[in-house]
């Protein structure tokens, strides 16, 4: 037998065996915007993926592709995953929204789950976490702790999720410190450590002594550590390696229970298209340990705020609130409904600068 024939038949045998093997397994795909080692956003999604593997063992097979650019490239990756037999695909960045809808239309039997978006279909669910609840706590701590009264904020892209976070942090910083000012820099990337570090350095040079980030890497933490006397918060992941200073607390995304539940639903055949948006109360948003760099009274207030958000007695967007242009947003005691929050495209009163289009 010729070598090539031998190899071909061996490959065929493996392929056949693989095919038969895969049939009784539920295949779950993940599309990631950064590397799984970013220490932030993608890292936590990957933890969720590992939890699915741990929960179901041999009954599932997970695959993931990292560093997938938002846009046409992601459509190609999703299509390939669907062609390879994925039963359920999680697309974990806002910019995958339209690609997810497009690919889902081509594969009606594959279930899709898109994170942080708002477009759904019969086989596309959306899910997100109420990060703005965590931002309220960060804003409170930031407002109390800033000495220069300048708080730097590194934004990624001007989408509702990020704007919601800025507003929530600002409202609660302003509440405890009327003189506070936000400096917002848009990095136009989710993951670029050098650029994120540059943005943090610029904010610090311009007087910020608190830096909040809505980008995925730990680079701003490193920049703040280098500068000294600047505090930061872990974003998406605990980033505890930078505790107790500069990182004084964090927002932790816990996707594991959701990923396990949705995979189970696909296995049981009970999966339906849903819209999930959970916060601190449901455990999807965690608040990382508040370190001793924060004074005890501020820590106690922050924890009380967390408790009141968790039990639903307090909503971070509670009136009276005005929009940046001075028009009314919420009347006294009124809380924002989810529709308004999901499409938020304005700053609240007091924030300077314009939102890029």
């Amino acid at each position, binding site marked *: 037998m010729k070598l090539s024939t031998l190899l071909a038949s061996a490959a065929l045998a493996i392929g056949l065996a693989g095919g038969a093997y895969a049939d009784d397994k539920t295949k779950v795909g993940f599309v990631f915007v950064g590397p799984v080692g970013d220490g932030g956003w993608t890292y936590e999604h990957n933890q969720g993926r590992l939890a699915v593997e741990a929960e179901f063992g041999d009954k599932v097979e997970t695959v993931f592709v990292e560093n997938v650019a938002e846009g046409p490239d992601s459509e190609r990756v999703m299509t390939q995953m669907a062609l390879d037999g994925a039963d359920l695909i999680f697309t974990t960045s806002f910019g995958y929204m339209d690609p997810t809808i497009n690919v889902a239309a081509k594969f009606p039997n594959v279930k899709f789950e898109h994170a942080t978006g708002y477009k759904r279909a019969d086989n596309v669910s959306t899910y997100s976490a109420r990060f703005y609840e965590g931002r309220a706590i960060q804003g409170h701590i930031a407002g109390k702790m800033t000495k220069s009264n300048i708080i730097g904020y590194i934004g990624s892209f001007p989408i509702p999720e990020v704007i919601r976070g800025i507003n929530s942090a600002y409202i609660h910083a302003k509440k405890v410190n009327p003189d506070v000012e936000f400096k917002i820099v848009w990095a136009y990337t989710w993951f670029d450590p*050098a650029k994120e570090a540059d943005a943090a350095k610029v904010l610090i040079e311009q007087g910020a002594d608190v830096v909040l980030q809505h980008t995925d890497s730990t680079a701003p933490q490193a920049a703040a550590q280098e500068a000294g006397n600047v505090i930061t918060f872990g974003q998406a992941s605990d980033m505890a390696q930078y505790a107790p200073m500069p990182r004084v607390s964090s927002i932790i995304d816990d996707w594991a229970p959701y990923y396990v539940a949705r995979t189970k639903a696909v296995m049981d055949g009970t999966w339906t298209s849903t819209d999930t948006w959970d916060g601190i109360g449901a455990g999807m948003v965690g608040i990382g340990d508040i370190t001793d760099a924060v004074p005890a009274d501020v820590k106690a207030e922050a924890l009380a705020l967390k408790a009141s958000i968790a039990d639903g007695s307090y909503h971070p967007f509670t009136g009276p609130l005005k929009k940046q242009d001075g028009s009314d947003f919420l009347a006294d005691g009124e809380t924002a409904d989810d529709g308004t929050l999901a499409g938020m495209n304005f700053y609240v009163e007091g924030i300077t600068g314009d939102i890029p289009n």
Partner: protein
Amino acid sequence: MDLSAINPVLFVAGFLVAATPLIFAALGELVVEKSGVLNLGVEGMMIMGAICGFATAVETGSPLLGFAAAAVGGALLSLLFAFLTQITLANQVASGLALTLFGLGFSALLGQSYVGIKPPRLAEVNFGPLHDIPVLGPVLFSHDIILYLGFALVVAIWAMLKFTRAGLILRAVGESHDAAHALGYKVVRIRTLAIMFGGACAGLGGAYISLIRVPQWTEGMTAGVGWIALALVVFASWKPWRLLLGAYLFGGITQLQLNLQGAGVAIPVEYLAMSPYIITILVLVVLSADKSSAPASLGRTFHASS
């Protein structure tokens, strides 16, 4: 809008730092391309340098040893490319792309235990009284040795290409490898050395990001600088001084737009964000109106018998 929030001294010092990784990577690639080889693996060699440098600096406590290791790491990875393209005569474009993919994956593997560690700090060069000159001191005389090395390397490469016999041979190989071969020059050997030099430079550039600019290790942290370096070589029409200008322009405008955003300048942010790319390209395109062209043998495979 509050322009007084921008400190010009810190701004200039900041952009010199931001431009340095780009200078190293692009300069290395310039030498490689001058020898007639197109290595698209700059990004992969940079990230290898970033992790080799970071790991060595953390283990030994010496940032300078880290930079040395970064150069070695980048050069070793580039040897793989040299083997593929110069010995087995594989396609240069495909090999270069493969090198980037390999470098990104391999560095992630090597770097797993280095996430979240703070590297030792490289001290500033002590210029004594020069450092105390107002404005000029902090801008020019308060950096680490590697930043100055980057600048010195630009001068050295320019002089080498323009005035020395070694530069002439390198250019000859890049312009016409058949003619160079006929004259008795070892085309493959010269190109392999150029590729290794390019790898070492890219490694230094990567380590500058992980040890000084950020400073930390994160997977994929070069995030596309290698590709910008590749583009810069072309736009600088293979001339070291233009390359330096391009890198400073790019680094400078990147820093400037972040500063302007922080200061709340009323230019729409989306224009600010794209400005580094557009302005750098425009300036270099205008400069390159003198019809400087690529090395004639760029990207062509050489075999002594053909």
